């Protein structure tokens, strides 16, 4: 599919970044994204370090949770703030430097061309740089689980790079405060019958991002969170 011909006004896009203890890298991540998009919203999730100050210095709008709530809660806060601004698209973007702003442009172009509501980044359709084998297997297992529970034919269930058209961002509510939000977003897409596509993206693993990433125990916690949410219903 050719997407280069269809462009989106970058001023109508909000990049939402949830950040906790990312003081050492967040300013660079914000500056990198600002090259292409003028509105970067960093949600400082109650970090004890200088994440908020660094993000502000980098040029982002900073929202701060008074206490640490989790990545899912921070993303929902950022999305709600972004929807209060004059934007047509909301993008979720990781704080640890794994994502490339150029991929966001590609996703926006794809949505503009195919008219779908959500573009999900997929590292397995695209590229990974320095991904450990254990992480690959963990993510593959999570994808199989998500395909079974949501019915969505995705290839990468836990990719933080997602682009929502405004109506899709309004339709989705993240209630899972912690890491189970990634599965919850896909469940919401399926339940609300939002149209979606996957876009190949590049994920760059660094020593820093690998240290911050999910462990096997984290995957177990996600399963428990999803199970408890189902009991509650």
């Amino acid at each position, binding site marked *: 599919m050719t997407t280069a011909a269809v462009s989106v006004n970058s001023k109508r896009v909000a990049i939402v970044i949830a950040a906790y203890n990312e003081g050492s890298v967040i300013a660079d991540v914000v500056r990198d994204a600002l090259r292409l998009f003028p509105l970067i919203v960093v949600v400082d999730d109650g970090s004890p370090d200088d994440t908020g100050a660094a993000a502000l210095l980098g040029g982002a*709008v900073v929202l701060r949770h008074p206490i640490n709530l989790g990545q899912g809660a921070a993303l929902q*806060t950022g999305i709600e703030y972004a929807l209060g601004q004059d934007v047509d698209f909301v993008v979720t973007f990781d704080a640890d430097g794994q994502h490339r702003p150029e991929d966001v442009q590609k996703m926006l172009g794809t949505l503009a061309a195919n008219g779908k509501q959500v573009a999900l980044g997929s590292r397995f359709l695209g590229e990974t740089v320095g991904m450990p084998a254990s992480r690959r297997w963990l993510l593959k297992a999570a994808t199989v689980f998500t395909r079974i529970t949501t019915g969505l034919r995705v290839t990468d269930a836990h990719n933080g790079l997602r682009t929502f058209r405004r109506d899709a961002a309004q339709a989705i509510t993240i209630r899972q405060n912690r890491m189970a939000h990634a599965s919850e977003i896909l469940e919401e897409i399926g339940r609300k019958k939002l149209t979606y596509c996957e876009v190949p993206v590049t994920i760059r693993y660094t020593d820093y991002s690998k240290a911050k990433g999910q462990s096997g125990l984290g995957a177990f916690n996600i399963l428990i969170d999803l199970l408890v949410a189902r*009991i509650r219903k």
Partner: protein
Amino acid sequence: MIKIFLSLLGLIVIAYGAREWRNSRLVSLLLVVCSLAAGVLVWFPAWSDQLAHLAGVGRGADMILYCYSAISFLMILNLGLKQRDLHQSTTRLARYIAITTPRLPKGDSSGK
């Protein structure tokens, strides 16, 4: 006397279970069913022996103990779910504070 006391306790748990219907139907239903079963076994202990025998537990007293364990587990689960609700309220409050007090980069006056 002990039967009446246990039955009263069972009724309290049933009332509690009925009240929880709005929050979690699964927990509510299991609380009521387990309490009713326990109440029946208190008043008709001979049945408990028969049931225990059918279930392969051995003694009726053990069966009642298992019912008690099941109710305790459900109550703990329910407390966990309540704690989750409380956490969601905290989240809404923290979100409100965050959204209404954005810090804008220098030279930007577009935020609300």
